[in-house]
Protein backbone atom coordinates (compact mmCIF):
# COMPACT_ATOMS: atom_id res chain seq x y z
CA UNK A 1 0.00 0.00 0.00
CA UNK A 2 1.14 3.54 -0.79
CA UNK A 3 1.31 6.19 1.89
CA UNK A 4 0.95 9.86 1.07
CA UNK A 5 1.94 12.51 3.60
CA UNK A 6 0.65 15.87 2.44
CA UNK A 7 1.72 19.13 4.02
CA UNK A 8 1.51 17.76 7.56
CA UNK A 9 2.00 20.26 10.38
CA UNK A 10 1.97 19.51 14.10
CA UNK A 11 2.51 21.94 16.94
CA UNK A 12 3.05 21.21 20.60
CA UNK A 13 2.27 24.59 22.14
CA UNK A 14 4.57 27.08 20.46
CA UNK A 15 6.92 24.34 19.25
CA UNK A 16 6.41 23.17 15.68
CA UNK A 17 7.25 19.48 15.69
CA UNK A 18 6.39 19.20 12.01
CA UNK A 19 6.26 22.14 9.63
CA UNK A 20 4.61 21.28 6.35
CA UNK A 21 5.98 17.81 5.63
CA UNK A 22 5.41 16.03 2.29
CA UNK A 23 6.46 12.43 1.61
CA UNK A 24 5.27 9.83 -0.87
CA UNK A 25 5.97 6.26 0.14
CA UNK A 26 5.65 3.60 -2.51
CA UNK A 27 3.99 0.23 -1.99
CA UNK A 28 6.37 -2.31 -0.47
CA UNK A 29 9.08 0.23 0.21
CA UNK A 30 11.26 0.22 3.31
CA UNK A 31 11.71 3.84 4.34
CA UNK A 32 13.89 5.31 7.08
CA UNK A 33 13.01 8.55 8.82
CA UNK A 34 16.43 9.79 9.88
CA UNK A 35 17.20 12.80 11.99
CA UNK A 36 18.53 14.03 15.33
CA UNK A 37 16.26 13.97 18.38
CA UNK A 38 13.62 16.66 18.18
CA UNK A 39 13.59 16.58 14.38
CA UNK A 40 9.96 15.41 14.31
CA UNK A 41 10.56 11.93 12.94
CA UNK A 42 8.75 10.05 15.71
CA UNK A 43 5.89 12.54 15.58
CA UNK A 44 5.52 11.89 11.87
CA UNK A 45 5.51 8.12 12.45
CA UNK A 46 2.87 8.44 15.16
CA UNK A 47 0.72 10.60 12.90
CA UNK A 48 0.92 8.01 10.13
CA UNK A 49 -0.10 5.37 12.67
CA UNK A 50 -2.97 7.44 14.05
CA UNK A 51 -1.52 7.71 17.56
CA UNK A 52 -1.22 11.48 17.05
CA UNK A 53 -3.22 13.85 14.89
CA UNK A 54 -1.81 16.60 12.70
CA UNK A 55 -2.93 20.21 13.07
CA UNK A 56 -2.90 20.59 9.30
CA UNK A 57 -2.37 18.35 6.30
CA UNK A 58 -3.52 14.89 5.28
CA UNK A 59 -2.37 11.30 5.38
CA UNK A 60 -3.43 9.04 2.53
CA UNK A 61 -3.35 5.25 2.55
CA UNK A 62 -3.63 4.50 -1.15
CA UNK A 63 -6.44 6.85 -2.12
CA UNK A 64 -8.24 6.92 1.20
CA UNK A 65 -7.73 9.73 3.68
CA UNK A 66 -6.44 7.90 6.76
CA UNK A 67 -7.32 10.79 9.06
CA UNK A 68 -10.95 9.74 8.85
CA UNK A 69 -10.01 6.50 10.57
CA UNK A 70 -8.91 5.72 14.12
CA UNK A 71 -5.70 3.82 14.86
CA UNK A 72 -7.53 0.55 15.23
CA UNK A 73 -9.22 0.92 11.86
CA UNK A 74 -6.03 1.82 10.01
CA UNK A 75 -4.65 -1.67 10.32
CA UNK A 76 -1.07 -0.63 10.98
CA UNK A 77 1.53 -2.69 12.78
CA UNK A 78 3.34 -0.41 15.22
CA UNK A 79 6.53 -1.51 16.95
CA UNK A 80 7.34 0.71 19.90
CA UNK A 81 10.79 1.84 20.85
CA UNK A 82 10.63 0.04 24.19
CA UNK A 83 8.53 -2.75 22.67
CA UNK A 84 5.52 -2.12 24.96
CA UNK A 85 4.87 -5.84 25.29
CA UNK A 86 1.96 -6.65 27.59
CA UNK A 87 3.84 -7.53 30.73
CA UNK A 88 1.20 -9.75 32.29
CA UNK A 89 0.73 -11.89 29.17
CA UNK A 90 2.87 -14.70 27.87
CA UNK A 91 4.68 -14.28 24.59
CA UNK A 92 1.96 -16.36 22.95
CA UNK A 93 -0.83 -14.18 24.32
CA UNK A 94 1.04 -11.04 23.33
CA UNK A 95 1.16 -12.16 19.72
CA UNK A 96 -2.42 -13.44 19.84
CA UNK A 97 -3.76 -10.16 21.28
CA UNK A 98 -4.58 -8.50 17.98
CA UNK A 99 -6.47 -11.62 16.88
CA UNK A 100 -8.41 -11.99 20.12
CA UNK A 101 -9.71 -8.42 20.25
CA UNK A 102 -11.26 -8.56 16.81
CA UNK A 103 -15.02 -8.11 16.59
CA UNK A 104 -16.72 -11.44 17.20
CA UNK A 105 -17.72 -11.96 13.58
CA UNK A 106 -14.18 -11.61 12.25
CA UNK A 107 -12.54 -13.54 15.06
CA UNK A 108 -10.72 -16.73 14.16
CA UNK A 109 -11.46 -19.82 16.18
CA UNK A 110 -8.97 -20.89 18.83
CA UNK A 111 -7.26 -23.44 16.62
CA UNK A 112 -6.63 -20.94 13.83
CA UNK A 113 -5.34 -18.35 16.29
CA UNK A 114 -2.96 -20.93 17.74
CA UNK A 115 -1.69 -21.95 14.32
CA UNK A 116 -1.26 -18.35 13.22
CA UNK A 117 0.60 -17.30 16.37
CA UNK A 118 2.92 -20.28 16.19
CA UNK A 119 3.63 -19.54 12.54
CA UNK A 120 4.55 -15.94 13.44
CA UNK A 121 6.70 -17.07 16.33
CA UNK A 122 8.50 -19.41 13.95
CA UNK A 123 8.92 -16.52 11.53
CA UNK A 124 10.76 -14.56 14.22
CA UNK A 125 12.47 -17.80 15.27
CA UNK A 126 11.21 -17.69 18.83
CA UNK A 127 8.60 -20.44 18.91
CA UNK A 128 10.31 -22.01 21.90
CA UNK A 129 9.60 -18.90 24.01
CA UNK A 130 5.80 -19.04 23.63
CA UNK A 131 5.11 -19.66 27.33
CA UNK A 132 7.57 -17.13 28.72
CA UNK A 133 6.72 -13.68 30.00
CA UNK A 134 8.28 -10.55 28.46
CA UNK A 135 10.37 -9.90 31.58
CA UNK A 136 12.13 -13.22 30.98
CA UNK A 137 13.33 -12.26 27.50
CA UNK A 138 16.41 -10.45 26.30
CA UNK A 139 16.11 -7.12 24.51
CA UNK A 140 16.56 -8.64 21.07
CA UNK A 141 13.95 -11.33 21.77
CA UNK A 142 11.45 -8.74 23.01
CA UNK A 143 12.02 -6.74 19.86
CA UNK A 144 11.23 -9.71 17.67
CA UNK A 145 8.13 -10.60 19.70
CA UNK A 146 6.94 -7.01 19.34
CA UNK A 147 7.39 -7.41 15.61
CA UNK A 148 5.51 -10.71 15.54
CA UNK A 149 2.69 -9.11 17.53
CA UNK A 150 2.49 -6.24 15.04
CA UNK A 151 2.50 -8.64 12.10
CA UNK A 152 -0.27 -10.78 13.59
CA UNK A 153 -2.98 -8.39 12.44
CA UNK A 154 -1.78 -8.61 8.84
CA UNK A 155 -0.94 -4.92 8.78
CA UNK A 156 -1.00 -2.97 5.55
CA UNK A 157 1.82 -0.81 6.91
CA UNK A 158 4.55 -1.67 9.38
CA UNK A 159 5.78 1.25 11.47
CA UNK A 160 8.81 0.91 13.71
CA UNK A 161 9.93 3.54 16.22
CA UNK A 162 13.70 3.32 16.81
CA UNK A 163 13.48 -0.45 16.42
CA UNK A 164 17.04 -1.13 17.50
CA UNK A 165 17.59 1.87 19.75
CA UNK A 166 17.65 -0.03 23.02
CA UNK A 167 19.85 -2.93 21.91
CA UNK A 168 23.57 -3.41 22.17
CA UNK A 169 25.70 -3.03 19.09
CA UNK A 170 26.11 -6.69 18.17
CA UNK A 171 22.45 -7.66 18.54
CA UNK A 172 21.51 -4.51 16.67
CA UNK A 173 23.56 -5.50 13.67
CA UNK A 174 22.14 -9.02 13.58
CA UNK A 175 18.57 -7.81 13.91
CA UNK A 176 19.10 -5.24 11.22
CA UNK A 177 20.11 -7.84 8.68
CA UNK A 178 17.30 -10.08 9.85
CA UNK A 179 14.72 -7.29 9.44
CA UNK A 180 16.00 -6.56 5.95
CA UNK A 181 15.54 -10.21 4.98
CA UNK A 182 12.12 -10.30 6.59
CA UNK A 183 11.06 -7.27 4.61
CA UNK A 184 12.20 -8.94 1.42
CA UNK A 185 10.07 -11.96 2.34
CA UNK A 186 6.83 -10.28 3.33
CA UNK A 187 7.19 -7.02 1.43
CA UNK A 188 4.85 -4.92 3.51
CA UNK A 189 5.25 -1.14 3.21
CA UNK A 190 7.46 -0.24 6.15
CA UNK A 191 8.63 2.96 7.79
CA UNK A 192 11.15 3.06 10.59
CA UNK A 193 12.49 5.91 12.65
CA UNK A 194 16.14 6.12 13.59
CA UNK A 195 18.79 8.59 14.60
CA UNK A 196 21.49 6.15 13.54
CA UNK A 197 22.64 7.01 10.02
CA UNK A 198 24.43 3.70 9.57
CA UNK A 199 21.19 1.87 10.29
CA UNK A 200 19.21 4.04 7.88
CA UNK A 201 21.74 3.77 5.07
CA UNK A 202 22.17 0.02 5.42
CA UNK A 203 18.53 -0.93 5.78
CA UNK A 204 16.33 1.47 3.88
CA UNK A 205 15.35 1.63 0.21
CA UNK A 206 15.02 5.37 0.65
CA UNK A 207 15.97 7.70 3.47
CA UNK A 208 13.99 10.74 4.58
CA UNK A 209 16.41 13.09 6.35
CA UNK A 210 14.65 15.39 8.81
CA UNK A 211 15.68 18.34 10.93
CA UNK A 212 13.64 20.81 12.93
CA UNK A 213 10.32 19.47 11.74
CA UNK A 214 11.26 19.77 8.07
CA UNK A 215 12.43 17.36 5.45
CA UNK A 216 15.95 18.14 4.32
CA UNK A 217 16.26 15.48 1.67
CA UNK A 218 14.58 12.31 0.41
CA UNK A 219 16.66 9.87 -1.55
CA UNK A 220 18.31 6.50 -1.75
CA UNK A 221 21.10 5.91 0.77
CA UNK A 222 23.60 6.56 -1.99
CA UNK A 223 21.97 9.82 -3.01
CA UNK A 224 21.81 11.32 0.44
CA UNK A 225 25.39 10.31 1.13
CA UNK A 226 26.97 11.27 -2.15
CA UNK A 227 24.78 14.17 -3.15
CA UNK A 228 23.61 15.85 0.03
CA UNK A 229 21.03 18.49 -0.79
CA UNK A 230 21.75 20.71 2.18
CA UNK A 231 24.54 21.58 4.56
CA UNK A 232 22.65 19.78 7.31
CA UNK A 233 22.52 16.51 5.38
CA UNK A 234 26.22 16.74 4.53
CA UNK A 235 27.13 17.25 8.15
CA UNK A 236 24.64 14.76 9.61
CA UNK A 237 25.35 11.85 7.30
CA UNK A 238 28.89 10.65 7.11
CA UNK A 239 31.92 12.51 8.36
CA UNK A 240 32.63 15.99 7.07
CA UNK A 241 35.35 18.56 7.31
CA UNK A 242 33.54 21.88 7.57
CA UNK A 243 35.36 25.16 6.94
CA UNK A 244 33.91 28.67 6.99
CA UNK A 245 34.53 30.48 3.71
CA UNK A 246 33.51 33.63 1.93
CA UNK A 247 32.35 33.64 -1.65
CA UNK A 248 33.59 36.60 -3.72
CA UNK A 249 34.18 37.02 -7.45
CA UNK A 250 32.95 33.47 -8.10
CA UNK A 251 35.65 31.92 -5.91
CA UNK A 252 35.73 30.67 -2.33
CA UNK A 253 38.04 32.56 -0.01
CA UNK A 254 39.40 31.07 3.20
CA UNK A 255 40.80 33.44 5.79
CA UNK A 256 40.63 36.25 3.23
CA UNK A 257 42.79 34.35 0.75
CA UNK A 258 41.34 33.02 -2.52
CA UNK A 259 41.41 29.22 -2.62
CA UNK A 260 40.78 28.80 -6.32
CA UNK A 261 37.75 26.60 -5.48
CA UNK A 262 34.60 27.20 -7.50
CA UNK A 263 31.66 28.73 -5.61
CA UNK A 264 29.23 26.13 -7.04
CA UNK A 265 26.59 28.74 -7.65
CA UNK A 266 26.46 30.01 -4.08
CA UNK A 267 25.83 33.74 -3.90
CA UNK A 268 28.58 36.08 -2.71
CA UNK A 269 28.82 36.25 1.06
CA UNK A 270 29.45 33.86 3.92
CA UNK A 271 29.44 30.17 3.07
CA UNK A 272 30.60 26.81 4.33
CA UNK A 273 32.82 24.32 2.57
CA UNK A 274 32.21 20.57 3.11
CA UNK A 275 34.75 17.88 2.29
CA UNK A 276 34.77 14.19 3.19
CA UNK A 277 37.94 13.31 5.12
CA UNK A 278 39.08 10.92 2.38
CA UNK A 279 38.45 13.51 -0.36
CA UNK A 280 41.13 15.84 0.96
CA UNK A 281 44.51 15.21 -0.69
CA UNK A 282 47.85 16.11 0.74
CA UNK A 283 49.80 18.23 -1.76
CA UNK A 284 52.86 20.48 -1.65
CA UNK A 285 52.18 23.59 0.38
CA UNK A 286 52.88 26.12 -2.32
CA UNK A 287 49.79 27.07 -4.27
CA UNK A 288 47.44 24.74 -2.33
CA UNK A 289 43.99 26.02 -1.32
CA UNK A 290 44.75 25.29 2.32
CA UNK A 291 48.07 25.10 4.10
CA UNK A 292 48.86 23.82 7.55
CA UNK A 293 51.05 21.71 9.74
CA UNK A 294 50.65 18.03 10.60
CA UNK A 295 50.09 17.79 14.35
CA UNK A 296 49.28 14.13 14.84
CA UNK A 297 49.17 10.88 12.90
CA UNK A 298 47.23 7.88 14.10
CA UNK A 299 45.24 4.92 12.99
CA UNK A 300 45.89 1.36 11.95
CA UNK A 301 44.65 -0.44 8.87
CA UNK A 302 44.32 0.65 5.28
CA UNK A 303 44.04 4.36 5.86
CA UNK A 304 45.76 6.62 8.28
CA UNK A 305 44.22 9.62 9.91
CA UNK A 306 46.24 12.79 10.20
CA UNK A 307 45.40 15.98 12.00
CA UNK A 308 46.39 19.17 10.30
CA UNK A 309 46.35 22.56 12.03
CA UNK A 310 45.45 25.04 9.32
CA UNK A 311 47.37 28.27 9.04
CA UNK A 312 44.42 30.52 9.71
CA UNK A 313 43.01 32.96 12.24
CA UNK A 314 40.40 30.57 13.57
CA UNK A 315 43.06 27.94 14.33
CA UNK A 316 41.00 25.19 12.67
CA UNK A 317 42.27 21.62 12.95
CA UNK A 318 41.02 19.20 10.28
CA UNK A 319 41.25 15.41 10.31
CA UNK A 320 41.83 13.76 6.98
CA UNK A 321 42.32 10.20 5.81
CA UNK A 322 45.44 9.45 3.77
CA UNK A 323 46.77 6.22 2.33
CA UNK A 324 49.09 4.31 4.62
CA UNK A 325 52.07 4.69 2.35
CA UNK A 326 52.27 8.47 2.74
CA UNK A 327 55.54 9.73 4.15
CA UNK A 328 54.31 12.26 6.62
CA UNK A 329 55.66 13.28 9.99
CA UNK A 330 54.29 15.51 12.73
CA UNK A 331 55.49 19.07 12.32
CA UNK A 332 55.63 18.84 8.55
CA UNK A 333 54.09 21.70 6.53
CA UNK A 334 51.53 20.42 4.02
CA UNK A 335 49.03 21.75 1.52
CA UNK A 336 45.50 20.37 1.32
CA UNK A 337 43.54 20.08 -1.91
CA UNK A 338 39.91 18.89 -1.92
CA UNK A 339 39.19 16.40 -4.68
CA UNK A 340 35.46 16.66 -4.20
CA UNK A 341 33.67 19.26 -2.13
CA UNK A 342 30.40 21.06 -1.64
CA UNK A 343 29.81 24.68 -0.84
CA UNK A 344 26.60 25.83 0.85
CA UNK A 345 25.56 29.31 1.83
CA UNK A 346 26.00 29.88 5.57
CA UNK A 347 22.95 29.19 7.72
CA UNK A 348 20.16 31.70 7.28
Amino acid at each position, binding site marked *: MKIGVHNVTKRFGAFAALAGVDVEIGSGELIALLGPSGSGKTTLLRII*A*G*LDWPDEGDIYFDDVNALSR*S*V*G*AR*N*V*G*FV*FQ*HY*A*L*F*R*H*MTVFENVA*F*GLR*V*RPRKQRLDEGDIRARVMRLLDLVQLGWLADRYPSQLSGGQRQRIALA*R*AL*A*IDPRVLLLDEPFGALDAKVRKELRRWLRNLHEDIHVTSVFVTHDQEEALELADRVVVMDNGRIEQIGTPQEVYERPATAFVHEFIGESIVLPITVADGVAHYGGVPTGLDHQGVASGAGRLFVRPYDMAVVPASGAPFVGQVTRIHGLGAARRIEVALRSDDGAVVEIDVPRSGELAPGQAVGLQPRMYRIFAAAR
Partner: protein
Amino acid sequence: MSVAVSALLARRPARSRPARSESAVVRWLIIAAAMAFLTVFLVLPLFTVFAEAFSRGVWPYLAALTDPDALAAIRLTLVVAALSVAVNLVFGVIAAWAITRFEFPGKSLLTTLIDLPFSVSPVISGLVFVLLFGAQGYFGGFFQSHDIAIIFALPGIVLATLFVTFPFVARELIPLMQEQGIQEEEAAISLGASGLATFFRVTLPNVRWALLYGVLLCNARAMGEFGAVSVVSGHVRGETNTMPLHIEILYNEYHFMAAFAVASLLALLALVTLVAKTVLERRVGEDQ
Protein backbone atom coordinates in the same frame (compact mmCIF):
# COMPACT_ATOMS: atom_id res chain seq x y z
CA MET B 1 40.50 -10.06 40.12
CA SER B 2 38.04 -12.38 41.86
CA VAL B 3 40.84 -14.83 42.46
CA ALA B 4 42.83 -12.15 44.19
CA VAL B 5 39.88 -11.18 46.33
CA SER B 6 39.14 -14.71 47.43
CA ALA B 7 42.79 -15.16 48.25
CA LEU B 8 42.59 -12.09 50.45
CA LEU B 9 39.45 -13.39 52.09
CA ALA B 10 41.07 -16.73 52.72
CA ARG B 11 44.02 -15.10 54.45
CA ARG B 12 41.76 -13.08 56.70
CA PRO B 13 41.65 -14.39 60.29
CA ALA B 14 38.50 -16.42 60.73
CA ARG B 15 37.17 -14.59 63.80
CA SER B 16 37.88 -11.03 62.80
CA ARG B 17 35.15 -8.52 63.59
CA PRO B 18 33.17 -7.12 60.68
CA ALA B 19 34.09 -3.59 59.73
CA ARG B 20 31.64 -1.84 62.03
CA SER B 21 32.49 0.61 64.71
CA GLU B 22 29.98 -0.53 67.38
CA SER B 23 31.09 -3.00 69.97
CA ALA B 24 28.96 -6.05 70.71
CA VAL B 25 27.53 -4.43 73.83
CA VAL B 26 26.26 -1.38 71.95
CA ARG B 27 24.87 -3.57 69.22
CA TRP B 28 22.87 -5.67 71.66
CA LEU B 29 21.69 -2.59 73.52
CA ILE B 30 20.28 -1.13 70.31
CA ILE B 31 18.56 -4.38 69.38
CA ALA B 32 17.17 -4.78 72.90
CA ALA B 33 15.83 -1.23 72.92
CA ALA B 34 14.06 -1.77 69.61
CA MET B 35 12.59 -5.09 70.77
CA ALA B 36 11.48 -3.67 74.09
CA PHE B 37 9.75 -0.77 72.39
CA LEU B 38 7.99 -3.11 69.96
CA THR B 39 6.91 -5.36 72.82
CA VAL B 40 5.46 -2.59 74.94
CA PHE B 41 3.70 -0.75 72.15
CA LEU B 42 2.68 -3.46 69.72
CA VAL B 43 2.88 -7.00 71.05
CA LEU B 44 1.61 -6.34 74.56
CA PRO B 45 -1.54 -4.43 73.49
CA LEU B 46 -2.35 -7.06 70.90
CA PHE B 47 -1.87 -9.80 73.44
CA THR B 48 -4.00 -7.91 75.98
CA VAL B 49 -6.87 -7.67 73.53
CA PHE B 50 -7.03 -11.44 73.09
CA ALA B 51 -6.24 -12.17 76.74
CA GLU B 52 -9.07 -9.97 77.94
CA ALA B 53 -11.46 -11.24 75.26
CA PHE B 54 -10.96 -14.84 76.40
CA SER B 55 -10.58 -13.98 80.08
CA ARG B 56 -13.80 -15.80 80.93
CA GLY B 57 -13.40 -18.57 78.44
CA VAL B 58 -14.62 -19.36 74.99
CA TRP B 59 -18.38 -19.47 75.62
CA PRO B 60 -18.74 -16.00 77.08
CA TYR B 61 -16.55 -14.82 74.23
CA LEU B 62 -18.86 -16.30 71.64
CA ALA B 63 -21.88 -15.04 73.55
CA ALA B 64 -20.49 -11.51 73.41
CA LEU B 65 -20.03 -11.81 69.66
CA THR B 66 -23.48 -13.23 69.02
CA ASP B 67 -25.27 -10.64 71.09
CA PRO B 68 -27.90 -9.04 68.78
CA ASP B 69 -26.34 -5.58 69.11
CA ALA B 70 -22.87 -6.96 68.38
CA LEU B 71 -24.17 -8.84 65.35
CA ALA B 72 -25.91 -5.70 64.11
CA ALA B 73 -22.66 -3.76 64.52
CA ILE B 74 -20.72 -6.42 62.64
CA ARG B 75 -23.30 -6.48 59.87
CA LEU B 76 -23.31 -2.68 59.59
CA THR B 77 -19.52 -2.57 59.49
CA LEU B 78 -19.44 -5.14 56.71
CA VAL B 79 -22.07 -3.25 54.70
CA VAL B 80 -20.30 0.09 55.15
CA ALA B 81 -16.94 -1.39 54.22
CA ALA B 82 -18.33 -3.18 51.16
CA LEU B 83 -20.01 -0.02 49.90
CA SER B 84 -17.05 2.26 50.52
CA VAL B 85 -14.58 -0.17 48.99
CA ALA B 86 -16.74 -0.60 45.90
CA VAL B 87 -17.25 3.13 45.40
CA ASN B 88 -13.63 3.98 46.12
CA LEU B 89 -12.48 1.26 43.78
CA VAL B 90 -14.40 2.78 40.90
CA PHE B 91 -13.62 6.41 41.66
CA GLY B 92 -10.03 5.68 42.64
CA VAL B 93 -9.44 4.09 39.25
CA ILE B 94 -11.17 6.98 37.49
CA ALA B 95 -9.15 9.59 39.41
CA ALA B 96 -5.88 7.75 38.79
CA TRP B 97 -6.77 7.39 35.13
CA ALA B 98 -7.59 11.09 34.78
CA ILE B 99 -4.43 12.19 36.56
CA THR B 100 -2.02 9.88 34.78
CA ARG B 101 -3.53 9.96 31.29
CA PHE B 102 -4.78 13.49 30.68
CA GLU B 103 -3.49 17.02 30.95
CA PHE B 104 -6.08 19.40 32.32
CA PRO B 105 -6.17 22.62 34.32
CA GLY B 106 -6.28 21.99 38.06
CA LYS B 107 -4.55 18.63 37.76
CA SER B 108 -1.90 19.36 40.36
CA LEU B 109 -4.57 20.74 42.68
CA LEU B 110 -6.54 17.51 42.32
CA THR B 111 -3.43 15.45 42.99
CA THR B 112 -2.87 17.40 46.19
CA LEU B 113 -6.52 17.26 47.24
CA ILE B 114 -6.61 13.48 46.99
CA ASP B 115 -4.44 13.41 50.09
CA LEU B 116 -6.67 15.77 52.04
CA PRO B 117 -8.52 13.03 53.95
CA PHE B 118 -5.17 11.85 55.34
CA SER B 119 -4.22 15.24 56.68
CA VAL B 120 -7.57 16.22 58.12
CA SER B 121 -8.76 15.07 61.55
CA PRO B 122 -11.48 12.40 61.20
CA VAL B 123 -13.75 14.42 63.48
CA ILE B 124 -13.77 17.19 60.90
CA SER B 125 -14.43 14.67 58.14
CA GLY B 126 -17.58 13.71 60.01
CA LEU B 127 -18.59 17.25 60.84
CA VAL B 128 -18.36 18.28 57.20
CA PHE B 129 -21.16 15.90 56.34
CA VAL B 130 -23.25 17.02 59.28
CA LEU B 131 -22.84 20.57 57.98
CA LEU B 132 -23.85 19.49 54.49
CA PHE B 133 -26.64 17.03 55.17
CA GLY B 134 -27.65 17.63 58.79
CA ALA B 135 -31.03 19.11 59.70
CA GLN B 136 -29.50 22.60 59.66
CA GLY B 137 -27.14 21.77 56.77
CA TYR B 138 -27.07 23.17 53.26
CA PHE B 139 -28.84 20.20 51.69
CA GLY B 140 -30.45 18.98 54.89
CA GLY B 141 -33.78 20.63 54.20
CA PHE B 142 -34.03 19.07 50.77
CA PHE B 143 -33.42 15.53 51.94
CA GLN B 144 -35.62 16.00 55.01
CA SER B 145 -38.52 17.18 52.90
CA HIS B 146 -38.12 14.05 50.79
CA ASP B 147 -37.92 11.91 53.89
CA ILE B 148 -34.40 10.70 53.21
CA ALA B 149 -32.24 10.27 56.29
CA ILE B 150 -28.54 10.87 55.73
CA ILE B 151 -27.06 11.92 59.02
CA PHE B 152 -27.55 9.45 61.90
CA ALA B 153 -28.26 6.79 59.29
CA LEU B 154 -26.45 4.43 56.94
CA PRO B 155 -25.86 6.97 54.09
CA GLY B 156 -24.09 9.37 56.45
CA ILE B 157 -21.85 6.62 57.81
CA VAL B 158 -20.97 5.50 54.30
CA LEU B 159 -20.29 9.09 53.18
CA ALA B 160 -17.96 9.76 56.11
CA THR B 161 -16.16 6.45 55.54
CA LEU B 162 -15.84 7.15 51.83
CA PHE B 163 -14.25 10.48 52.56
CA VAL B 164 -11.76 9.06 55.00
CA THR B 165 -10.77 6.13 52.79
CA PHE B 166 -10.76 7.78 49.38
CA PRO B 167 -6.98 8.24 49.03
CA PHE B 168 -6.01 4.57 49.43
CA VAL B 169 -6.87 3.26 45.97
CA ALA B 170 -5.95 6.38 43.99
CA ARG B 171 -2.64 6.81 45.80
CA GLU B 172 -1.60 3.24 45.09
CA LEU B 173 -2.47 3.49 41.41
CA ILE B 174 -1.16 6.92 40.45
CA PRO B 175 2.59 6.32 40.83
CA LEU B 176 2.38 2.87 39.23
CA MET B 177 0.33 4.04 36.26
CA GLN B 178 2.63 7.00 35.83
CA GLU B 179 5.63 4.71 35.77
CA GLN B 180 4.09 2.18 33.41
CA GLY B 181 3.18 4.89 30.91
CA ILE B 182 0.68 4.58 28.10
CA GLN B 183 2.69 2.60 25.58
CA GLU B 184 1.05 -0.74 26.27
CA GLU B 185 -2.34 0.89 25.87
CA GLU B 186 -1.24 2.49 22.62
CA ALA B 187 -0.01 -0.89 21.48
CA ALA B 188 -3.38 -2.41 22.34
CA ILE B 189 -5.41 0.14 20.39
CA SER B 190 -3.02 -0.05 17.44
CA LEU B 191 -3.75 -3.78 17.39
CA GLY B 192 -7.42 -2.98 17.04
CA ALA B 193 -8.62 -3.23 20.64
CA SER B 194 -11.49 -0.97 21.67
CA GLY B 195 -11.11 1.41 24.60
CA LEU B 196 -13.01 -0.93 26.88
CA ALA B 197 -11.05 -4.00 25.78
CA THR B 198 -7.81 -2.07 26.31
CA PHE B 199 -8.88 -1.15 29.83
CA PHE B 200 -9.93 -4.63 30.87
CA ARG B 201 -7.22 -6.59 29.06
CA VAL B 202 -4.21 -4.30 29.51
CA THR B 203 -4.64 -1.43 31.98
CA LEU B 204 -6.44 -3.30 34.73
CA PRO B 205 -4.28 -6.46 34.73
CA ASN B 206 -1.17 -4.29 34.83
CA VAL B 207 -2.26 -2.61 38.05
CA ARG B 208 -4.19 -5.51 39.59
CA TRP B 209 -1.88 -6.07 42.56
CA ALA B 210 -1.56 -2.39 43.37
CA LEU B 211 -5.33 -2.14 43.09
CA LEU B 212 -5.82 -5.06 45.45
CA TYR B 213 -3.30 -3.52 47.83
CA GLY B 214 -5.23 -0.25 47.81
CA VAL B 215 -8.50 -2.10 48.35
CA LEU B 216 -7.01 -4.00 51.28
CA LEU B 217 -5.86 -0.86 53.06
CA CYS B 218 -9.10 0.88 52.17
CA ASN B 219 -11.07 -1.99 53.67
CA ALA B 220 -9.00 -2.07 56.86
CA ARG B 221 -9.53 1.61 57.40
CA ALA B 222 -13.22 1.48 56.49
CA MET B 223 -13.86 -1.23 59.07
CA GLY B 224 -11.77 0.45 61.74
CA GLU B 225 -12.80 4.08 61.25
CA PHE B 226 -14.01 5.61 64.51
CA GLY B 227 -13.81 9.40 64.55
CA ALA B 228 -15.64 10.41 61.40
CA VAL B 229 -18.27 7.70 61.80
CA SER B 230 -18.81 8.59 65.44
CA VAL B 231 -19.84 12.12 64.47
CA VAL B 232 -22.44 11.10 61.87
CA SER B 233 -23.69 7.85 63.39
CA GLY B 234 -25.83 8.99 66.28
CA HIS B 235 -24.92 5.78 68.15
CA VAL B 236 -28.30 4.10 67.83
CA ARG B 237 -27.74 0.67 69.22
CA GLY B 238 -28.43 -2.16 66.85
CA GLU B 239 -28.96 0.33 64.05
CA THR B 240 -26.19 2.87 63.45
CA ASN B 241 -23.38 1.43 65.54
CA THR B 242 -20.39 0.08 63.69
CA MET B 243 -17.96 -2.25 65.41
CA PRO B 244 -15.61 0.46 66.69
CA LEU B 245 -18.56 2.46 68.07
CA HIS B 246 -20.06 -0.67 69.61
CA ILE B 247 -16.75 -1.40 71.32
CA GLU B 248 -16.63 2.07 72.80
CA ILE B 249 -20.16 1.80 74.16
CA LEU B 250 -19.49 -1.59 75.71
CA TYR B 251 -16.32 -0.24 77.26
CA ASN B 252 -18.03 2.84 78.65
CA GLU B 253 -20.62 0.59 80.24
CA TYR B 254 -17.88 -1.50 81.90
CA HIS B 255 -18.48 -4.58 79.76
CA PHE B 256 -14.75 -4.97 79.36
CA MET B 257 -14.78 -8.59 78.30
CA ALA B 258 -17.44 -8.02 75.62
CA ALA B 259 -15.68 -4.89 74.41
CA PHE B 260 -12.46 -6.80 73.96
CA ALA B 261 -14.25 -9.72 72.35
CA VAL B 262 -15.50 -7.48 69.56
CA ALA B 263 -12.16 -5.69 69.51
CA SER B 264 -10.45 -9.03 68.95
CA LEU B 265 -12.26 -9.27 65.62
CA LEU B 266 -10.79 -5.95 64.54
CA ALA B 267 -7.38 -7.03 65.78
CA LEU B 268 -7.72 -10.21 63.75
CA LEU B 269 -8.62 -8.14 60.72
CA ALA B 270 -5.46 -6.11 61.29
CA LEU B 271 -3.34 -9.26 61.39
CA VAL B 272 -4.89 -10.68 58.23
CA THR B 273 -4.42 -7.32 56.51
CA LEU B 274 -0.80 -7.27 57.59
CA VAL B 275 -0.08 -10.70 56.11
CA ALA B 276 -1.96 -9.97 52.88
CA LYS B 277 -0.16 -6.63 52.63
CA THR B 278 3.22 -8.29 52.86
CA VAL B 279 2.32 -10.78 50.15
CA LEU B 280 0.87 -8.07 47.92
CA GLU B 281 3.82 -5.76 48.33
CA ARG B 282 5.96 -8.41 46.73
CA ARG B 283 3.50 -8.70 43.83
CA VAL B 284 3.30 -4.94 43.34
CA GLY B 285 7.07 -4.90 43.14
CA GLU B 286 6.87 -7.42 40.31
CA ASP B 287 4.56 -5.14 38.31
CA GLN B 288 7.05 -2.34 38.25
